């Protein structure tokens, strides 16, 4: 941790509209995505635990509903990964802009 800018500078950065927008954009993706994947995942042990008879029914040939649901979790994880990677490129641009500007301002201060 290099204290290369003072406390006041960090607070100013945190208050910048650009930063607030980045933070909001991240949260708008991350919070719903997290709630969704936890709910989707927990639906598996809950359904299998409380309705074993329903989940034991073969749906795809001999493969049971439980096993299909389990396999669908792999697809869910990979799709969510893909969506996040796409969205995160935008976050990267905003973050890089802030980083670049900060280095310039720091150099100016030192001059």
């Amino acid at each position, binding site marked *: *941790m*290099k204290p*290369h*800018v003072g*406390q006041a500078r*960090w*607070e100013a*950065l*945190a*208050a910048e509209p650009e*930063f607030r927008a*980045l*933070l909001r954009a*991240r949260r708008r993706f*991350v919070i719903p*995505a*997290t709630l969704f*994947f*936890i709910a989707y*995942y*927990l639906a*598996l*042990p*809950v359904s*299998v*635990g*409380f309705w*074993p008879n329903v*989940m*034991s029914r*073969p749906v795809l*040939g*001999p*493969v*049971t509903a*439980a*096993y299909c649901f*389990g*396999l669908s*979790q*792999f697809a*869910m*994880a*990979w799709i*969510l*990964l893909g969506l*996040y*990677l796409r969205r*995160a490129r935008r976050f*990267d641009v905003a*973050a890089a802009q*802030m*980083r670049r500007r*900060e280095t310039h301002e720091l150099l100016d201060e030192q001059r």
Partner: protein
Amino acid sequence: MNAQPSLVMFAVFVGITLVVTYWASGKSHTSLGFYAAHRRIGGLQNGWAIAGDYVSAASFLGITGLIAFYGFDGFMYSVGWLVAYLAVLLLVAEPLRNTGKFTVADLMSFRLRGRGVRAIAALSTLAITLFYLIAQMVGVSAIVNLLLPRFGDIVAIALVGVLMLVYVLFGGMLATTWVQIIKAGLLLVTAIALSLLAIGHFQFSLGHFFNAAAAVATGGRESNLLQPGLLFHGKLGAWNLISLGLALVLGTAGLPHILMRFFTVPSARAARTSVAWAMVLVGIFYLTTSFMGLGAATIVGKDHIGRRMYAGQAIGYISHHPQQQQVLDTQLKRDGYIVPTPDSNLAAPLLAQQLGGSLLAAFVAAVAFATILAVVAGLTITASSAFAHDIWFSLVRNGYGDETEHLFVARATAVVVGALAIALSIALRGFNVAFLVGLAFAVAASANVPVILLALSWRRFSRTGAIAGMLAGLVSSLALIAISPVLMGDRAIFPLENPGIISIPIGLAGAILGTLFARDRESEAMFDQLQVRATTGIGAEV
């Protein structure tokens, strides 16, 4: 089974990794090099290394065995361990890379200055790591039976311990990373090959494959491995399943040896790329566990998975019941071996034996050995950083002391941790390794995850909250394991096998109540800085 080929293959793996270690040893003279490989590992490489660090003996031997014995219920582990990476991806990886230095405690003590937080964070890292280490070493004792039948468990465990120490002591994080990458490649190829062979056994018809899995003969009766409820059943089955599921899906984001890998990459973006690669590789691997496990149950036969005794070894067996003796004799005559103790950890090697003969079995056993070796090395370096960086350097020496001392303490800790793990794992043999690791996940999910998430997102969060949360999570999860059926059997006070469903909320409640109890102005003042750094990467360690 002939031990010669597996010894040769294992020796080749060891030879290659020792060359890597020699090459890396020139680059590990600083603490930055030793703990974080100078932060010069690429995203793709780190993704493979994460996969190599994560897919342990618990996954390869343990889950395959659980699926072979209990079908769908074992597959629950595979699902949970992949989905868990979403928590790492979305919540932890990038902020951690942007704000930390070497350890999880770095992230917490960024805004929660002071000795208490760091000490307890290091303590929980040590506890989780040790739990995990024991599980890995127990896996050693399971496969040594195949790999080095003449040497015995203790020699094999000691061999793994010594080799792992060589990697860690001389090669540091760089050598450990490459050992993990090589191992991940080997393991993935092996798992895919075994799966294809298993499906090939059914003329490459998935229909036939799953039909066979739906009608597996056990002790003369048929059971459907595709149905849930073979492992988790009865009155509390559902709750056992949910508790385990919670621990699996949240625990990964609190595993110190996985989190530490994000300090080896140059940027938050590389951290994200590495999780993405890891999710692809780990996902493919966990898909294959179904084919390996169900394949073992159908092709080897559920009743034939265990520690086998061949005619030569079996001469000395004595049964007290003449009838049972007769059963054993018949089995010996029919199959050429008997299975005196079922051991689910042996499902994968025995499947290989059945499908590809002793050469493939030897290869699989050698890969399993390599797997354990790589994971154990990663765990040891994590424990050593927690002690040397967090406890010794930051607390005992108050940040003084030079690089030479820092590295000496790190290496000495590695030796102590290695010795401790060897001793404990010799004492604890015979448990299913996936199951043991499930407990380590519960501790990580209860003690680390609530505090990491609150430190990153709650302005008000305080030192008292962090200490209360970690202690509550650590103590409650360990205490519940101690009074659970795992350790107390039928006399258990706590009815569930995995403590997650109780101990995770306790950890979270501890963190929240501790925070509400006392205000921490310093921590609140640092929140802006933490948030800017975590989100933008300004001022991140390079």
